[in-house]
């Protein structure tokens, strides 16, 4: 056996995965070759030391922080469907309108079966989500095909699913059906007054500029006597809007989710 062959077998010899024949040849070689014997001793010592490196402890705040992030993630998941509807509100409305028109047309015998199209348009828009990330997580993912991850970029907690930002406040308003019936119009008109524009439908999710968060909450509590309002404040942007560079404030939102309890 040549030294170059012995070098190739060294790793497997240490791991004990050589067949009997190779093992015998390898041992015979290092018995007679001091250079390879030395290589073997060094490599072996190195591997033994690796095993001894041991673990370091999890940071104390690890579980607590993870818990907070999981709650946020769950909320984002739940919201993404609403956000989708919100984002494509105009498109969805147009499609519905089209469906009505086509439906009417079909009714009077001009077309057949066309209304289905509106739904598939919406579907294909939605599908463009976080395909990149999903590929990475897939069981078939190749090691080096991993796409970029936001591991150290805390400002983008989600990938491609929409417009939410970790700098946004999340406001959960929990109300009963009765309260909703009683106040929904007032809540909407209050949001309209902040937004300065009319809201045509009555969805359960609204977006207002972040700086109105506290005003919104006090309005809920003081005027409507709705006390079950939970705010998850942003974690990475200054709470005070004035502390931020000019022109940026439009990016930060408060996302209001109305939850109607049974």
């Amino acid at each position: 056996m040549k030294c170059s062959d012995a070098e190739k077998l060294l790793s497997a010899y240490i791991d004990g995965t050589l067949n009997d024949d190779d093992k015998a040849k390898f041992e015979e070689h290092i018995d007679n070759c001091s250079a390879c014997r030395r290589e073997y001793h060094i490599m072996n010592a190195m591997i033994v030391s690796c095993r001894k490196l041991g673990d370091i402890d999890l940071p104390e705040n690890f579980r607590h922080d993870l818990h907070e992030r999981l709650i946020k993630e769950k909320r984002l998941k739940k919201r993404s469907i609403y956000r989708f509807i919100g984002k494509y509100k105009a498109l969805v409305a147009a499609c519905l309108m089209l469906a009505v028109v086509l439906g009417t047309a079909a009714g009077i015998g001009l077309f057949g079966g066309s209304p289905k199209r509106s739904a598939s348009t919406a579907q294909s828009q939605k599908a463009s989500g976080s395909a990149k990330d999903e590929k990475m997580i897939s069981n078939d993912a190749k090691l080096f095909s991993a796409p970029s991850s936001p591991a150290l970029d805390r400002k983008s907690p989600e990938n491609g699913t929409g417009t939410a930002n970790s700098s946004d406040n999340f406001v959960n308003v929990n109300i009963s059906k009765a309260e909703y019936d009683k106040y929904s119009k007032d809540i909407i008109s209050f949001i309209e007054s902040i937004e300065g524009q009319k809201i045509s439908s009555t969805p359960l999710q609204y977006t207002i500029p972040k700086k109105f968060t506290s005003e919104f909450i006090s309005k809920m509590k003081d005027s409507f006597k709705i006390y079950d309002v939970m705010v998850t404040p942003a974690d990475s942007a200054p709470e005070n809007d004035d502390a931020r560079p000019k022109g940026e404030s439009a990016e930060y939102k408060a996302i209001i989710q109305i939850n109607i309890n049974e």
Partner: protein
Amino acid sequence: MNYPEKELVRKSRNGDIEAFESLIQSYEKRIFNIAYRMTGDREDAYDISQEVCIKIYKFIKKFRGDSSFGTWVYRITSNVCIDELRKRKANVIPFTITNPEGEYEIPVADRDKLPDEAYESKELSEAIRLCLLQLEPKYRVMIVLKDIYGYKYEEISKILNINMGTVKSRINRARKLLKDELEAGNLLGTNPSKK
């Protein structure tokens, strides 16, 4: 609560945070430590391991159960680590033999000890920790999985989704590279007169 893992996975799929936390509890320390060995930095390891846990929660529906849950978890961990290291490739940290706790002392060879004893010193472990960071991520991950955590070839093949032949040759190459790094830094203190 001591549900079998399968049950915890099922509940986690439905977004059950409590179930997910019990599930991930058995893995989070290892996730954190793999990230620590891969990056050599506690803060980075923290960021990466939090990110990994969130990804697992987010994509647990994608876990088909073809492999063990652990294999899938460590695959995501390895992927995120390697990906992060590749992103940083542009600004490679120059090799300095220092550590956060202070100056690192190059171990002096103890010529009276047998090689095995001399090399098994704490200093060598420390040298390995540092030299490991000089290896390309694809080799670094081999040392981490094989020599630090003792995974078998087959397990590594599943975690990294590469075939056994590649695993074997990469481990061989990774060890050679690590040894070269140690010797280049004169960190092994080898004594040629020792026969």
